[in-house]
C-alpha cells in the first residue's frame, strides 16, 4: 500500500501553533451558540454553565496534555484510546472526534457564507455556493501544508481574540456602550433552578474542541513542551474570552434577544453604538469562523488518517503527500462529508450531534488517562528508567481529576434530555453500533503491537 510506504509527517509546529489550533477551533463558540444557555437558564444559568463546563474542560485539557506529550501521535484521543483502552473504544473516539469537527466545519462555513452575504448585500451572493467555496479553500490550505494552514489560523484567531478583549475593556472603561444591570435582573433565572441546571447542555459551546490542540503532537518540533504549554495557554485564553463575552453580552443585550441571537457578540457591539467596535466584531465573527473551520479540517483529517493507518478504514486514506507531507487523501475526504452536513440545513441538530460526540470523547479521554496511569505507574517507570520517555509531563491530582471529568461529562450529557432527547438517543445508538462494528472488524485483522518497537517504551506492568 502506498500509504504504508509514505514519508512521515513533518515536525515543525511550536507552542503558538498548538495554541492557535486549539483556540482557533473553539473561539467561534464565544461568537455564537453559547447564548442558548441564556434561553435555558438566564444569566445565572449561563454563568453556571461557564463555570461547570470550564472546570470539566480544564481537566480534559490536562488529560490531553499528559497523553499527547507522552504518545506524540497524530490521532490524539483516538490513539490514546487505542493504546490504553482497546480497539473498539479507539475507533469510537476516532469517529467521535471526526463527527464533532466535521459538523463544526460545516456550521462555520455556512456562517462565513452568511456573513459575507450580509456584508455585500448588493452582490446577491447565494449562501450554499459560497459555503462550497469556503470549504474548498480551507481544504486546499490544509492540503498544501499544515504550517501554512496554522499560520493562517494564528492570524485569524489572534484578530478575533483581540476584538473580544478590546470590546470588554472599552466597555468596563465606559467607552464601549452602556452596561445595563437591569438586563441581568430581568433575565436572571427565567426557568427557575431547573433552567439553570438545563443550561449545562450548551456549556460545552464555550470550549468545545479544545482537546484537538493535542492532535498535532506528531507534527510538533518539541511535543513535550509544545503540547502542555500550548494546550494550557489555549484553555486560559478560552476561559478569558468566555467570561468577557458573557459579561458584555449580558449587560448590552436584553435576555429575550440574547437567548435567540445568531451573533450575540456582534449584536452587543451593535447595541453599544460605537462604530469601530461594530466593525471590529463583524471582522472578528468572520475571522473566527474561518479559523474554526480551518482547524477542524486539520483535526478531522488527522483522526480519519489515524483510523485508516490502523486498518479500521481502508489504508488508502493514510497516504502522506510526498511534497507537502500532509495526509492529503484524508484532508480531501473531509470535503464531501462537510458539504453533506452543510447541505442538510438542520444546523442546530447537527451541532447537538457534535456536542454529543464531544461528550463521548470527554468520557473516553480521561478513562484513557486512568488506564495509562494504571499500565505505566510511576514506580514501574522508575524501575525501568523510562520516566522521561513515557511520561515527560504528568498532570496534577491524577487519576482523581480524570474520574471527576467523567462524572461531569455524564452529568452534562444527561441535561441534553431537556429539548434534545432524540438527538441524545440517536447519538448514543450510533456510537454503540459503531463500537460493535469496529470491534468486529478489528478481530478480523492480524495486528502486531509491540510497545518497544511502536513507542520506544518498556512493556506495561504485568506483561513481562
Amino acid at each position: 500500500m502506498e500509504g504504508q510506504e509514505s514519508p512521515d509527517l513533518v515536525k515543525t509546529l511550536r507552542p503558538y501553533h498548538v495554541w492557535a489550533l486549539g483556540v482557533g477551533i473553539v473561539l467561534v463558540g464565544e461568537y455564537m451558540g453559547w447564548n442558548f444557555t441564556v434561553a435555558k437558564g438566564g444569566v445565572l444559568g449561563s454563568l453556571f454553565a461557564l463555570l461547570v463546563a470550564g472546570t470539566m474542560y480544564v481537566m480534559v485539557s490536562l488529560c490531553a496534555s499528559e497523553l499527547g506529550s507522552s504518545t506524540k501521535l497524530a490521532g490524539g484521543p483516538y490513539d490514546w484510546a487505542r493504546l490504553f483502552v482497546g480497539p473498539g473504544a479507539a475507533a469510537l473516539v476516532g469517529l467521535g472526534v471526526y463527527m464533532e469537527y466535521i459538523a463544526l466545519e460545516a456550521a462555520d462555513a455556512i456562517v462565513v457564507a452568511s456573513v459575507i452575504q450580509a456584508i455585500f448585500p448588493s452582490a446577491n451572493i447565494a449562501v450554499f455556493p459560497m459555503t462550497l467555496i469556503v470549504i474548498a479553500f480551507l481544504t486546499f490550505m490544509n492540503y498544501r501544508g499544515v504550517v501554512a494552514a496554522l499560520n493562517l489560523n494564528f492570524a485569524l484567531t489572534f484578530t478575533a481574540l483581540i476584538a473580544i478583549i478590546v470590546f470588554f475593556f472599552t466597555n468596563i472603561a465606559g467607552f464601549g456602550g452602556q452596561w445595563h444591570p437591569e438586563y441581568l435582573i430581568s433575565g436572571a433565572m427565567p426557568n427557575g433552578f431547573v433552567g439553570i441546571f438545563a443550561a449545562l447542555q450548551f456549556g460545552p459551546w464555550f470550549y468545545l474542541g479544545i482537546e484537538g490542540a493535542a492532535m498535532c503532537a506528531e507534527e510538533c518540533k518539541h511535543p513535550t513542551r509544545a503540547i502542555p504549554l500550548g494546550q494550557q495557554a489555549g484553555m486560559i485564553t478560552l476561559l478569558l474570552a468566555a467570561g468577557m463575552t458573557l459579561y458584555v453580552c449580558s449587560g448590552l443585550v436584553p435576555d429575550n434577544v440574547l437567548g435567540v441571537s445568531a451573533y450575540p457578540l456582534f449584536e452587543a457591539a451593535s447595541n453599544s453604538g460605537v462604530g469601530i467596535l461594530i466593525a471590529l466584531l463583524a471582522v472578528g465573527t468572520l475571522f473566527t469562523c474561518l479559523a474554526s473551520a480551518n482547524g477542524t479540517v486539520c483535526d478531522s483529517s488527522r483522526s480519519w488518517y489515524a483510523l485508516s493507518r490502523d486498518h479500521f478504514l481502508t489504508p488508502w486514506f493514510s497516504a502522506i503527500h510526498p511534497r507537502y507531507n500532509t495526509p492529503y487523501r484524508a484532508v480531501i475526504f473531509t470535503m464531501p462529508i462537510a458539504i453533506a452536513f452543510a447541505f442538510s440545513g438542520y444546523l442546530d441538530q447537527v451541532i447537538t450531534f457534535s456536542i454529543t460526540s464531544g461528550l463521548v470523547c470527554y468520557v473516553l479521554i480521561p478513562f484513557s488517562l486512568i488506564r495509562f496511569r494504571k499500565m505505566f505507574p510511576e514506580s514501574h517507570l522508575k524501575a525501568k528508567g523510562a520516566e522521561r520517555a513515557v511520561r515527560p509531563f504528568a498532570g496534577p491530582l491524577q487519576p482523581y481529576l480524570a474520574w471527576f471529568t467523567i462524572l461531569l461529562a455524564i452529568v452534562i450529557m444527561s441535561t441534553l434530555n431537556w429539548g434534545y432527547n432524540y438527538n441524545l438517543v440517536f447519538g448514543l445508538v450510533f456510537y454503540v453500533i459503531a463500537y460493535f462494528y469496529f470491534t468486529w472488524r478489528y478481530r478480523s485483522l492480524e495486528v502486531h503491537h509491540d510497545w518497544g518497537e511502536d513507542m520506544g517504551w518498556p512493556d506495561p506492568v504485568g506483561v513481562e
Partner: protein
Amino acid sequence: MEENNTNIDPVRYASKLKADAGVVILLLAILYFSESFITYNILSTVLAEVPEAAKLLPVYILFFVLLIGIETAGCLRVYGSIKEHMYSFEYYD
C-alpha cells in the same frame, strides 16, 4: 535538572525559560482578574434583586475555586516539566 549536552547555552536557556514562565504568569493574572471581576459583578448584581438565587451561591463559589485552582496547579506542572526536560530535549535550540 539534566544538562548533558555541552553545546547548550545555559544563559539562553534560562532566559527562554523565563519567557515561558512569563507567558503563563501573565495569562493566569489576567484570568484571576477577569473571572473574579465577571463572577462577582454578575452575582452581586443579580443576588441583590433575586434573593432566592442565593441558595446556589455555594455551588458557584465551589466551581469558581475548582476552575481557578485546577488551572493554576496545571500551569505549575507545565512549568516544572519544561524546567526539568529543557536540556535533555533541547527545547530552545
